[in-house]
């Protein structure tokens, strides 16, 4: 599509941020907390893998990396991302949110789509969702592909900020 080239000329503000393919970024303006504090045993006990969690301050969740959307769950609450280095990340928006069956989730991406860190994945109707769910959002390393991934200290983060180190 030629429109790709057009976009470059008309300085449309890009949502994505420039990071290397190995880096992981904050999925929103949020408070980053330890996975152990998440009120869901499967995540808190790291049964799904290591990672971090976010108390979201806004209603759009962004891709945490450059990569491919290997899995987009139809209900919009979970996203599987594969990075170029083979690391697999799961973004799980909220706790038990599968029960909403998509209500309150506006999915902005498609399965197998390539994304850059900072590209929007989903828009949330926070008012509706927060009435019924704990919207703590988990970023889980479901497959570290034998790499050691460490995160920055917990606390306030800005969207697109590098959180891996």
């Amino acid at each position, binding site marked *: 599509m030629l429109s790709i080239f057009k976009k470059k000329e008309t300085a449309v503000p890009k949502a994505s941020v420039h990071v290397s393919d190995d880096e992981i970024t904050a999925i929103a303006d949020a408070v980053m907390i330890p996975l152990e504090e998440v009120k*869901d045993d*499967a995540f808190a006990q790291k*049964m*799904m*893998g290591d990672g971090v969690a976010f108390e979201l301050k806004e209603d759009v969740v962004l891709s945490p990396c450059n990569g491919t959307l*290997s*899995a987009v*769950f*139809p*209900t919009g*609450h*979970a996203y*599987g991302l*594969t990075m170029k280095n083979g690391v*697999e990340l*799961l973004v*799980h928006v909220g706790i038990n949110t*599968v*029960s909403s069956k998509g209500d309150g989730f506006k999915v902005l991406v498609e*399965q197998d789509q390539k994304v850059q860190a900072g590209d929007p994945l989903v828009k949330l109707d926070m008012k509706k969702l927060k009435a019924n769910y704990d919207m703590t959002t988990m970023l*889980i390393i*479901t*497959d570290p592909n034998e790499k050691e991934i460490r995160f920055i200290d917990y606390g306030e983060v800005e969207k697109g900020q590098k959180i891996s180190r």
Partner: protein
Amino acid sequence: MREFKYTVKDELGMHARPAGLFVKEAVVFPGRITIVKNGKEADGKKIFAVMELDVECGDEIILRTEGEQEEEAISVLSRFLEENL
């Protein structure tokens, strides 16, 4: 090769969390673990592959274990399905 047929009873299907927990149980076995839905196969050791099958309530799936420890694998994983899905 061992196979186990199961109809999913959980109203919410095999979503991210159960898929993740299944995979955790599956990866400890050395052999091949496969979940089949409507002829479509997914590597039972890969969470995204399992999620992609989009297994919903009422779907019939086949759990297949092959190779070393296939007997133990089918026993443990079929029990997981019965207890969690």
